[in-house]
């Protein structure tokens, strides 16, 4: 268990709803849910959610902290926004799903073998490096995210697609060497570092029980 997780358990005891309200993106909306279930019927990958959004919101209120934060469910969100336009209470459900996923990761509780957990982290790392996504390196790191043998299998499996992309110039081997970048990487990195610091300080403050 991460130190931050221990601190949060200590701080919020039996009030997981409060913890979510304080620390999860758009988390203060959760209490507005009236459990109508409309969102749960909206997810394109619905059959694969152990707990659809409505259920997650109920579990948050019931204090099922561990079950919610270790769940693979919010990692099944395709950001389709079906739920947002349908919810009678106008909850920003998509953002709450992203927020729960991020918070679970921050506390070290997220399911690390979950493929979208890995992809999302790879994507972020890739963009942070140079300010722009390098699709080739992102793709390669993705194929190899489950180890070398799996990676070679996936690469071979995907080779046809890569070839099609290469032929139509929608993929470039040059990306391996240099690749696209912002010019002001220094300012870019300083800016992100600052944003991360401010956010960490906010969470820290709640963790300490200000």
């Amino acid at each position, binding site marked *: 268990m991460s130190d931050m997780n221990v601190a949060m358990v200590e701080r919020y005891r039996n009030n997981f709803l409060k913890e979510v309200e304080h620390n999860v993106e758009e988390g203060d909306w959760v209490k507005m849910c009236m459990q109508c279930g409309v969102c749960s019927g909206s997810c394109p990958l619905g059959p694969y959610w152990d707990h659809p959004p409505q259920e997650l919101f109920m579990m948050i209120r019931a204090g099922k902290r561990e079950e919610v934060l270790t769940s693979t469910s919010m990692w099944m969100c395709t950001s*389709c926004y079906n739920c947002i336009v349908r919810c009678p209470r106008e909850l920003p459900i998509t953002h709450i799903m992203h927020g729960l*996923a991020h918070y679970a990761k921050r506390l070290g509780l997220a399911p690390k073998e979950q*493929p979208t957990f890995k992809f999302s982290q790879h994507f972020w790392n890739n963009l942070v490096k140079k300010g722009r996504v390098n699709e080739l390196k992102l793709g390669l790191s993705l194929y190899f995210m489950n180890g070398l043998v799996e990676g070679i299998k996936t690469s071979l499996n995907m080779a046809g697609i890569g070839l099609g992309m290469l032929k139509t110039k929608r993929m470039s081997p040059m990306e391996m060497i240099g690749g696209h970048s*912002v010019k002001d990487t220094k300012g870019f990195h300083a800016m992100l570092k600052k944003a*991360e610091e401010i956010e960490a300080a906010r969470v820290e403050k709640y963790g300490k029980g200000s």
Partner: protein
Amino acid sequence: MATKEYSFYPGCSSQEGASSSNYLVSVESMCEELDVKLNTIPDWNCCSASIGYCGGGELPRLTLSARNLALSEEHNPGQDVVATCAACWLATRETAERLGEDDDLMAETNQALAEAGLTFKNENKIRHMVEVLIDDFGYEELGKHVKKPLEGIKIAGYVGCQTNRPFGIEGESFENPKYLDKLVETLGAEPVENYEKKVSCCGGALAFSEPEKSQALIKEIIESAYDGGADMIVTPCPVCQMNVEVYQDKINAKYGTKFHIPVTYYSTLMSVAYGRSAKDSALGGQIIRAKQLEDIANK
């Protein structure tokens, strides 16, 4: 009409050698014909699309889009920001709205931006290219530029998710937006009526991490286009375009289907209909070639 100018946010997938570089080429041709000047935001960065949330917290992600907007205000003052990618548009517009509603977040964002010597004032509208076409031009005006009508082609307008929800195009419904169909008609082609999977999800970024689950969604999108008698599919979103085009062989292998349907951008259709060459319309960027469009372009 006088030249229209916009501040342009192209996004990562449009870069040279990237997956939707062909989109950008056709957009540029289309804009030349419409006398639209796109002023690219200098030194723009990735918006983190809808998938960077594992490593990126709320504030860092908002700051990414705020940096682009701040650069736009500085270098392209007073101009609406236009994005061609649905995910870019969404992330950027959401940022502007969120920061517009929350003064604390706005202050924190600007504190971070100050490290890069920037300030975000939240002064301009953030729009998708399709909005520009429909609101600033309108179908009638768009139709006037047609030199080679796309006669005899039946096209399924696949709108997808993020160009449609949560913002969508003004005056359109979430369930059955008509703008792509109207555009197809304007260009002289025939739209598929009642295309059932018009606003269904292709899996988005999860096509990478959950390929099988996403390909099951994509299969239905393509099947329903065939059911409507479509010769090709058109979309306003680079994620939709890529997902629906490139996995067809995989889907065929798994499900025994015989899919082979071109998936183009609205800008591809427009460039061809506006009389531009196959090259200017980026027809070479089709992994599944759009032969009917090639024939018209080469006429």
